[in-house]
């Protein structure tokens, strides 16, 4: 197979390990809203650009390709950009049960 006819694209789910370094919660199963087009979807269903060689993970909206989450390893630090999300919705641990 040649690399030219395909994308090195994965599902957001494949970044679940990396994202769990950032969030206490498992976030690939939660919903979020794209700041550019408003599409709402589970983070695990978004497009992920991440290869074993890449500097980090780039999660893009499946509807408009806009950036949702960027997480980059920079020599001992992990810089996380969340500008592409209006919100994400996590299970509320503080809620009375």
């Amino acid at each position: 197979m040649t690399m030219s006819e395909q994308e090195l694209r994965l599902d957001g789910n494949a970044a679940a390990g990396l994202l769990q370094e950032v969030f206490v919660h498992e976030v690939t199963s939660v919903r979020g809203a794209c700041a550019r087009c408003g599409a709402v979807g589970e983070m695990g269903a978004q497009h992920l650009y991440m290869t074993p060689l890449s500097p980090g993970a780039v999660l893009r909206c499946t509807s408009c390709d806009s950036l949702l989450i960027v997480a980059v390893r920079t020599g001992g630090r992990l810089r996380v950009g969340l500008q592409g999300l209006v919100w994400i919705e996590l299970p509320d641990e503080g809620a009375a049960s």
Partner: protein
Amino acid sequence: MVGTALQRRLIWRTAEVVDLVDETPRVRSLVLAVPGWPGHQAGQHVDVRLTADDGYQTQRSYSIASPQSTDERLTLTIERLDDGEVSPYLARELHAGDQLELRGPIGGYFVWAPALGGPLLLIAGGSGSCPLMAMLRLRQAAGSTVPARLLYSSRSLDEVIYRSELARLVAAGSGLEVMLTLTRAQPPGWTGLHRRIDTEMLQSVAWSPAERPWIFICGPTPLVETAASALVDLGHEPARIKTERFGPTGG
């Protein structure tokens, strides 16, 4: 709801290889003992980290092929890519007694449990059958009779992973059907499917959109993208189609 269970912080664990099973000429399963393993859901994966003696490290994801259990064990099934960096090591170099670093279980999106119901449509290409096998094994172990169909694309019959186990699961009569499509070589007298997955094939295999199947598609990125967009075109709800792209593997 499946998958929203809170999880503890991920840590790297040291697993021990306790058994190796040759599934096909290019595919080997590793049975791992992982002290303290908290258990997992069908469809989750682990990240495996390898370290060379000069400190060089690299990491890959592998789906868990075994269903939930309480014995602190799990099975990974690895397809060897000869020009790959990690899979030849895992599928050829490792032997029983070796140690392996991994973290998990990971992911809450590409998971199925009997409570989610069905019908359950599973579409696999090559080693993409691994997480789907965890779902079928769980379905069987839990005594679930949710109707399930697996459409499995493989280059040849010899390369079909879990072939005899799939035959046994079908024979158990719990409402599982398995359709193979053999894309490169077919045994003499083969009357089954023998082309790459396409819209027409999916139309004949999938339930109608009105029956609202849960659909899980897994394998090399091009196969996953073809199948997912064909199913959307056939009228299936995107929110009920879950995908797991393995990247540029196999094919």
